Every structure is written in structure tokens, then in C-alpha cells.
């Protein structure tokens, strides 16, 4: 029973997205390019696949201060949130949307887009975030997580490059 409802819901969702896609194609809004050229996700070296450690571990859903491998994570994103709001407890090598859909790390933008919908749309249009490559050809996108560390996504201040030489000092 449950399965049938899920299937129906998914079908409905598919139809809906197809319809929106059609509507979008009508407007000037550029849709997702056929191929998104994104570099691989910026994993901490050696940390992926997550299953190399997590495969045999029990799932602990209690919010707590993380130790060991993840002691660098003090979640400053989404108050009250926890790992499994995004990470798939059943297969740590993937992510999971709120609706249960499984998402690969390479497509993590779909996960971010659950809350940051307008930004996802603008990212796809090329407005949000940085694009490199060809202005009239193959463009390379960056994943959200390339600039925003998902556990503390606020962009960190950086050191500016030197100010210009003053005209009186140009000799």
C-alpha cells in the first residue's frame, strides 16, 4: 500500500516537474544545461567513501558533540539540524533529500536547493556562484560546497591583495 502511494506520488512529482520544465522553457529562464560541468566534490582527503568506516557502524541519531574523524564539525547551519537531515543514514556515500530521494555527492546542489530554491535557480542560470570556462561554450560550474562548507556555510573573510600604488609614489 505504502509503496503504491509512494510510486503515485513520485509519478505525480515527475509530471509536475515536467510541466514546470515546459513552463520554464516558455519563459526566458535558462534551464539546467544538458550537462553540468562540475569538479568533483571537495572532500577532505581520505574521507571518502564514507562507507569505509561507517559501513559497520550503528546509526546514532542523537545530536552530540562529534569526536574523532569529525571533531572539526560544529554544525553552524540550519539551527536544530543534524547529520541525517542531509546524509543518508543507510548509505553514507550518498545524501538524502527530505522527501527520501537519494542524491549523489556530485549533485549535492539538489540537496541545498531544498531550502535555497531561488539560489539554486540562479546558480543554474549562472547568476549565483562562479562559472569558468567558455562564455559561449562549455562552462564549468562549482558545487555549492566548493565555496560554502556545508557545516558552516558562511563565506569566510579573506586577505585582500595589496592596494594600488599611489600616484605620488609612481616614479
Amino acid at each position: 500500500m505504502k509503496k503504491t502511494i509512494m510510486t503515485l506520488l513520485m509519478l505525480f512529482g515527475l509530471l509536475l516537474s515536467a510541466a514546470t520544465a515546459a513552463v520554464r522553457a516558455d519563459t526566458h529562464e535558462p534551464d539546467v544545461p544538458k550537462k553540468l560541468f562540475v569538479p568533483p566534490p571537495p572532500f577532505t582527503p581520505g574521507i571518502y567513501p564514507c562507507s569505509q568506516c561507517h559501513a559497520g557502524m550503528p546509526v546514532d541519531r542523537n545530536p552530540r558533540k562529534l569526536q574523532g574523524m569529525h571533531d572539526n564539525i560544529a554544525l553552524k547551519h540550519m539551527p536544530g539540524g543534524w547529520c541525517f537531515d542531509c546524509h543518508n543514514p543507510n548509505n553514507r556515500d550518498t545524501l538524502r533529500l527530505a522527501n527520501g530521494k537519494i542524491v549523489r555527492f556530485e549533485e549535492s546542489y539538489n540537496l541545498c536547493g531544498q531550502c535555497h530554491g531561488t539560489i539554486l535557480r540562479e546558480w543554474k542560470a549562472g547568476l549565483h556562484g562562479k562559472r569558468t570556462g567558455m562564455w559561449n561554450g562549455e562552462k564549468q560550474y562549482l558545487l555549492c560546497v566548493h565555496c560554502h562548507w556545508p557545516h558552516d556555510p558562511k563565506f569566510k573573510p579573506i586577505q585582500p591583495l595589496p592596494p594600488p600604488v599611489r600616484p605620488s609614489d609612481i616614479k
Partner: protein
Amino acid sequence: MKNLIRNFFIAGRQVLIGDKTYYAWIAFLSVFILLGLSAYVDQLHRGLITTAMRDQASWGLYISNFTFLVGVAAAAVLLVIPAYLYNFKPIKEIVLFGELLAITAIIMCILFIMVDMGRPLRVWHILPFIGSMHFPSSLLAWDVVVLNGYLAINTIIVFYVLYQLSIGKEYKMSVIGPLIILSIPWAVSIHTVTAFLYNGLSARPFWNASILAPRFLASAFCSGPAIMLILFQLIRKKSDVEIDDRAIFKIAELIAYAMGLNLFLLGAEAFKEFYSGTIHSYPIEYLYFGLHGKTALVPWIWSATILNITAFFLFLFPRTRENFTTLNIGCIFVIIGVYIEKGMGLIVPGFVPDTLGEIYEYIPTTSEIVITMGIWALGAMLYTVLLKFAVPIYTGKLRFEMKEQKSYKASPS
């Protein structure tokens, strides 16, 4: 034609002959010319980095002098109008020296533009036909046309008149009449075009005021004649040329009116700028009061203003105007006053603050000043030489006869 060339050379020989003062004067000027030349060679070699100009203030002392000298050149018209149109005898006799000054000033203008150019050898690019002159779009192209035209008109008039005099004939109005008529609007145009050169730049609110061209003309009609008054006194002291006091006083009177107008226009501009107090008044604020503690021009512009006002009163009252001490003081005041106001006082605030709001105080380098002095010395020498050439013909000391034989009587001064 052959005669003309031969006579030209005979008259030219006068230039080499003179008394001790003359040689000393030429030597004195030569020192400055050579100094200027050596500074210019260095500038050519290293580039304009030898100046204090930078991207924030991309024009400076050279363009300031150029602007001032266009005014001086334009002012020759002040003599031409009464001389030829109203037949005011005393001025008519000396109009030649005004035109020689115009020629000198234009040549100095061209030199100031040349030394300001980053690639002077490419100057031909600006010419019509052989280059790609951007006419009528660029006001600088207009300036090339009007300045060279003015130079040509004055050169033709001067040399025609001199030639006629040299062969003992009266010049024919039918020949130069049209040229003289043409030279009047042309003189107005050289200064108007030069004003428009700055005036047309919407990026520079200090220049982008429609009062600019009238102010240019008014101040030019002060400084040019003031220089001439001093020169006339020198000429009549140093040569047999007779210059009527009436001519001098008349010109002084005209200076008073021009200065009155100049001060009025300045007041009108100051009112508009300071009363409305928009962000576009920052340059004039910088000029008169300083901006963000930068006050390099403030003492200069106030000196200029005080000098101009004082000169106005000196020229306004017949008593001081017709007293040679106060007259000369007035002349010097006007020359310095307008030189500051229409030179650095006009150019520098155009760049302060710059278009991105930066304040770079431009103060010319020694190299720039030496080159500037060199051009002034060259101008002085050119005018001296032109006088040396023209005066004997003018006074009738040098006369040629129309025959082929060289039967002229010359008595060098």
C-alpha cells in the same frame, strides 16, 4: 617672387645684427632654451614619467600654458577690431606687433601640445588627409584646424603688410580686408574651440559649465592686451617705432571692461557652484578652499583673484590707467592673475577630485618647469627676432626697390 625671397633674406640679416643688450638677451634666452631642450630630451627618452602628471591628473602645466597662450593669441583681435574697422589711427599703426605676438603665441601653443604628447613623432596621425583626423567629432581636431588657420591668417597678413611696406607701398585693403574680417571671428573661435575642448567633457563638472567659453574670452581679452602694453613700451623704448600714448591708454581701457566682465562671470560661476552646493562643486571648492586638507592651489587662486580685482580698478580709473607706473603694475597683475586663473587654476581642478573621487595633488616637477621655461624663452626669442625683422621695414629704415638690381638702403638699428 624671386625679389620677395631675396628681400626676405636681406631683411632676415637684420636679425643677426644688434647691440650688446640684444646679444645678451639672446644669450640669456638661449640658456633657458638649451636647458629646456635637455630636459625635453630626457622626457622623450624616459617618457612623461618625468612630469608630475599621472592617471589621476593626466594634464598639467603644459596644457595650462597652452590654454593661457591661446588666449594671448586670440587677443590680437582686440587690436584688429578698432584698427581696421573703426580706423582708430593710433592703434592701426601698431596692430602689426599684436599680430606678431599672435603668431608667436600660436607657435608656443603648438610646442606646448607637442611636449605634452606621449608619441610626438606620430603627430601626423592628427592631420587631415595624411592622418585620420577625427573631424568634426573631436574638439582637439577642431583646435588643430583653427589654431593653424589662425597662424596662417596672421602670417599672411603680417608678411603681406611687411612686404608692401618694404617696397614702399601702402598695403591694399582689397587684398587683406577679407582676411582681416575673417581673422576677427577666427580669433574668437580659437579661444572658443579651446574652451569647448574642456567644456564638452561631461566627466569633468568643473569644465562642463556653459560659462566656460565666455570666461575664456573675457580673461583672454585681459591677458593678451596686458602683455602687448608691456611689449609696446619696450618696443618704443628700444626702437624708433613710435607708439602713441593714446593707443596704450585705449587698450588699457579695454582691459578694464574685459576684466570687469571676467570678474562678473567668475562671480556668476561662484554663485551657482557654492549656492547650490552639489557634489559638482567639489573642484571649485578644492580650488578656493581646499578639499580634505589638500590646499595646494588655494594661495595661488586667491592671489590671482586679488591681483585681477586690483588690476580692474587700476585700469578702470583714467588716473591710474594713464599713469605708466600704475599701468604697468596693472599689466603685470593681469598677466600673473590670468596666468594662474586660466592656467593651472583651470586645468588642475578639472582632475581634483578625479572621476573616481580620488584627490591627487598635482604639483609640477622641475623637469616640467624647465621645459615650460624653455618654451617661454623660445617664444620670447621668436618674438624678438620677428621684431628685429619687422621693425626696420616698419619704420622705413629698410626699403627695397622694385627693380632687379639690389639697390636697397639699409641702416641697421
